[in-house]
């Protein structure tokens, strides 16, 4: 229970359906740890702030369930925040939400549920899970509300994890969820949705990284470098590759006639390579550490629609097996813009999530 409308409505729904449930908020990140980042307003709607815990507790009280706050700050820092910072410093664009799902929400939290005698967990994710008799596998499907679908971040879930998870909001659209919350008179019915990464205030991940590194007493390494074109001409200077992500257009500090985009970054040489729109196009790439969900894997080429970013319309592609069973080659029908190392590549067959991996 994050204190948001979605998880609050899930709690109320499950109680209404007659389940015996326990509500828990995971204390993942101390908002006051990096004080320079905390806005005057005090951090509502971000990861486990005091206000959010208060809201979750109030909802638990309203629906009449036991409620606890469980502390996973140490694990969250080790398995989500630190990798997030390291990925950026390595010139990649991470998706911490996927790591949080894999290692915290559907791992530590599942273990905590086990510890207190619960068979399953339920979350406010917009996604659907069902058991398919024919294949004997738990399948993950897109949510009915496509605009809120979160399956992109769930590609790492194992069969074991899915077998013990409920996604009660999967069949609902967001307005219905809010309506239900209002109808059940939940304290958070009118609360705004949280945006961006939960532990990064205002979406300013560069400021977060600087503050975090300072807090750990780590000097960020050499953060000056050149912005160059694809044919090696230097166009300008920058303050660190971690400020840039593939496909980025703003913040280059270069005025030219035609639009320029970040094509790649190299933390070794601290170079940011920019180019035109065509340079961003990519027809094929390798996905590593692939996790298969609805199917067992690929032995022969498989047709799928592949998302390379959360806000990307899944594009038709063919999935090819490689020498390594955990690597898949994705060949798009049409080249796609800005295939970004560090992001996830998620393979769909319509609504069905076949599986996904990491863009190398």
């Amino acid at each position: 229970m994050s204190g948001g409308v979605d998880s609050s409505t899930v709690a109320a729904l499950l109680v209404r359906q007659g389940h015996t449930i326990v509500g828990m908020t995971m204390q993942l990140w101390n908002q006051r740890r990096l004080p320079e980042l905390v806005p005057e307003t005090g951090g509502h709607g971000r990861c486990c702030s005091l206000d959010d815990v208060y809201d979750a507790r109030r909802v638990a009280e309203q629906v009449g369930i036991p409620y606890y706050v469980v502390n996973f700050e140490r694990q969250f820092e080790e398995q989500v925040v630190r990798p997030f910072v390291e990925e950026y410093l390595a010139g990649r664009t991470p998706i911490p939400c996927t790591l949080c799902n894999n290692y915290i929400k559907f791992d530590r939290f599942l273990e905590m549920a086990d510890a207190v005698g619960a068979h399953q967990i339920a979350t406010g994710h917009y996604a659907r899970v069902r058991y398919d008799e024919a294949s004997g596998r738990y399948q993950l499907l897109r949510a009915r509300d496509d605009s809120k679908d979160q399956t992109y971040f769930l590609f790492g879930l194992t069969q074991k994890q899915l077998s013990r998870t409920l996604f009660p909001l999967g069949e609902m659209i967001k307005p219905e969820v809010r309506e239900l919350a209002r109808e059940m008179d939940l304290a958070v019915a009118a609360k705004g949705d949280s945006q961006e990464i939960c532990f990064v205030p205002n979406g300013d991940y560069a400021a977060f990284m600087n503050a975090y590194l300072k807090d750990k007493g780590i000097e960020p390494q050499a953060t000056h470098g050149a912005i160059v074109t694809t044919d090696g001409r230097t166009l300008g200077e920058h303050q660190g590759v971690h400020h840039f992500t593939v496909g980025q257009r703003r913040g280059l500090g270069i005025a030219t006639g035609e639009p320029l985009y970040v094509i790649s970054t190299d933390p070794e040489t601290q170079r940011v390579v920019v180019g035109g729109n065509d340079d961003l196009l990519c027809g094929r790439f390798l996905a590593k550490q692939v996790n298969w969900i609805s199917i067992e894997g690929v032995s022969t080429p498989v047709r799928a629609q592949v998302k390379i970013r959360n806000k990307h319309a899944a594009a038709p592609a063919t999935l090819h097996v490689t020498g390594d069973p955990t690597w898949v080659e994705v060949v798009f029908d049409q080249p796609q813009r800005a295939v970004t190392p560090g992001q996830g590549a998620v393979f769909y067959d319509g609504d069905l999530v076949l599986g996904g991996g990491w863009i190398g």
Partner: protein
Amino acid sequence: MQHFYFDHNATTPVAPEVLETAVSCLGQVYGNASSIHHFGQAAKQRLEAARRQVSALIHSSPAEIVFTSGGTEADNLAIFGAIRAAGSPRVHLITSAIEHSAVLAPSAQLEREGVAVTRLPVSAGGTVNPEDLRRALRPETVLVSIMHANNELGTVQPIAEISRITREAGVLLHVDGVQALGKIAVDVDALGVDLYSISGHKFYAPKGVGALFVRKGTKLAPTTFGGHHERDRRPGTENVPGIAALGAAAELAGRTLSAESERLASLRDRLESWVLDRISGAGINGARWNRTPNTSNIYFDGIDGEAMVIALDLRGFAVSTGSACSSGAITPSHVLIALGLSADRARSSLRFSLGRSNTAEQVDALCDALAASVTHLRRISVHA
């Protein structure tokens, strides 16, 4: 589902006779104790009667009792008050590594303000070595603050020995007695203390009331300002119902202390013997002797203490991992770490603190629940 309470060091329920005193006072004795008229006088009488009751429990004179809003305020008043009364800019404070945050936090604040602070280590059994104190004394030491009984372990510190050293050195001794009063005998003269903190809600009085014993002649600067109450040491219109309740609780404690501490010790020992006998990989944290009779801090290897507290709560047994004030903290108990426990073992530890409502049947039921929980948690534990 029935709920059983094994967290008396966190707080205690208000005893029936104490409740009666508080309620009658709330309803009927509403004058301001500083008013000269009939209503004020009635309030003043209740106030002074309670003062006599509290002083009797600790063998002090009534004039040496200052009423406060609780133990935290008493600790703050003692520490800031003694240090600020010293007058000299170069001062030194000695405390211990296992104090409650109500002593550690004022110490840390004074340190930020330029006061030198020494934090004495403790033995594996949880006690301060008086020789360490002797060696730590400096010419500019003004105050020593060592708790009487530790809230997480129950360990009792050698206060009489410590006070001999502080007296010899001409240094003030403050003792946080919050976890001791009501559980073991307290005699401020035998102990040799100059300042002693008291918290009502640890011995069956309501929350929000406590006291500080201030030995006659002790220089204490006020930390809050307003009227002249409590002999100019703590301003504010007195919470007479709360204070009356504190007095009643003190009297109750005096009457029942020796029988009750024997009863509690036997229940606590029953719990510990059963656990050590039947549950492998479990042990007592801190020395088993020289403890308050009701407290037991036990590690259970291979389990997560936080998960176990929740699991036990869902079965109807209320216990805790460390002090209530530190729940949800990212770092394991500073007390257990000071004993030399590893972070893992500290996180696998639970505190059981018994009180008036506990019976042998309840302890047995707790033991069964413990065994079941530990077995279950160890079986499912992947991230041990």
